[in-house]
């Protein structure tokens, strides 16, 4: 078994282009078929459906006031949750990768929690805490503060679900860079802020941007957690992904797919940015490893 595998590697290196082994060919075809059926086909279907009745109908659907409200709310939720996670993520990654303290492994587990919990459960947590029947419900009601079925709940749920993206991206990067450069800055007389802004930040900037792209893409697309806390009030608490569902349930296919096409476009854009950043990061780490 092992010797066959090694043989294949040798074949690949030498004559891959002229004579691909049958197993390789089969695997490649399988992967391409799976990719087409699972990803390319649905994505194409979104755009075909959206433009089925022509440009004019598509544009009208996108310009629909409720759709525009949904876009605005999604951008608002992402616009608040992403900067919050930028601060939390950098702080958490900094603490985990540059210091030793008790409870560190507990913190790392907590950072990963939103990845492990179903988004619906994440939403429910907030309903249980801030909802009318929840722990703080009566108090919030007395003070006329609306969190659940209002914008703050949507922002909270989005922030929770997207929390790990930036921290997860930065921790391995910062751990691999160690603390020597920061120590050197301190010995040379830098204060804490100068050390962070002139040494740490430039060293992690591409990784940070990468995390930001992933975080933003997820914040715009989040459905489950937001669905639980939103209340689906059109024009008020309806984000773009929720709006797609509403339109679809109302048999407004062009509208639903037009809205979906906007989300798909942001995803494709994010993917392009991600690729660019990956290239930048690999170039930077190669430079450092020389």
């Amino acid at each position: 078994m092992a010797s066959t595998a090694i043989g294949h590697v040798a074949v690949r290196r030498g004559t891959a282009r002229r004579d691909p082994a049958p197993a390789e060919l089969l695997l490649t075809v399988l992967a391409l078929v799976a990719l087409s059926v699972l990803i390319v086909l649905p994505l194409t279907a979104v755009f075909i459906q959206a433009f089925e009745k022509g440009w004019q109908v598509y544009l009208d659907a996108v310009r629909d006031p409720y759709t525009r409200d949904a876009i605005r709310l999604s951008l608002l939720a992402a616009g608040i949750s992403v900067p919050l996670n930028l601060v939390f993520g950098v702080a958490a990654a900094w603490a985990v990768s540059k210091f030793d303290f008790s409870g560190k492994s507990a913190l790392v587990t907590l950072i990963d929690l939103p990845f492990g919990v179903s988004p619906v459960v994440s939403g429910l947590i907030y309903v249980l805490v801030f909802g009318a029947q929840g722990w703080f419900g009566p108090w919030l009601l007395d003070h006329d503060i609306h969190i659940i079925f209002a914008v703050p709940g949507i922002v909270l749920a989005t922030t929770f679900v997207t929390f790990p993206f930036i921290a997860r991206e930065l921790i391995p990067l910062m751990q691999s860079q160690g603390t020597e450069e920061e120590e050197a800055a301190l010995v040379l007389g830098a204060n804490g802020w100068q050390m962070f802004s002139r040494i740490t930040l430039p060293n992690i900037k591409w990784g940070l941007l990468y995390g930001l792209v992933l975080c933003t893409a997820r914040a715009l697309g989040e459905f489950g957690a937001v669905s639980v806390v939103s209340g689906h009030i059109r024009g008020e608490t309806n984000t773009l992904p929720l709006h797609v569902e509403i339109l679809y349930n109302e048999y407004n296919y062009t509208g639903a797919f037009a809205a979906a096409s906007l989300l798909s476009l942001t995803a494709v854009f994010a993917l392009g940015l991600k690729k660019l950043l990956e290239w930048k990061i690999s170039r930077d780490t190669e430079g450092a490893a020389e």
Partner: protein
Amino acid sequence: MSIEVEHVSKKFGAYTALDDVSLRIETGELVALLGPSGGGKTTLLRIIAGLESPDAGIVKLRDEDATRSPVRERRVGFVFQHYALFRHMTVHENIAFGLKVRPKATRPLDWEIRGRVNQLLKLIQLDWVGDRYPSQLSGGQRQRVALARALAVEPKVLLLDEPFGALDAKVRRELRAWLRRLHDELHIASVFVTHDQDEALEVSDRVAILNHGKIEQIGTPQQVCQNPANSFVREFLSEGPRSVDIAPAARTTPLS
């Protein structure tokens, strides 16, 4: 200016890195901390710099108690084992860093900083690499840039952690002699950590031999060679020249 360490102890968990260590280094003196790895040399150096705080004992710089003063106020020059050059800055920017982070009141003007950096580049005989990045330099060049960066802030105390550890034998010997000359020109107190007895005996005025967190013996190279205080010192010094047989590849960590 002098460095004084009085009854310093340091533990990391259950591991004792330093156990009641006392040492005084006068201005103009170049002292080597010599010993096997894990003996506490680097910990002692980091405590003098303020990068670690001792569990017990006092550190005095310029005859003032500096045990509680933060790193950036101690004005020490520190050369890290793997240089710790700022990878996103050019050599020029690296050397200028210590001057540029000063508060406005004490910061030299831009043209003064430029002049000082150029002067230091000449001192380390690398005035043609100012615009390069650390990744474009050889190990020996990085080492000299790290030294220039440490000297830019005109420290009165220079601390070097295994300064030649990651270099090949020929470059090490050249840099050793160069460091000795430089030290004599600057009239400062210098301490360097090494596990290479040749290096310690050849370069330093005095050698402190550390083992298991204690100073086994301290004295001039002649004293420790002719009158070793105990069997550990005798055996450690008689292990023969080791600077040649430590492969440079084994001494570099993959991350630096």
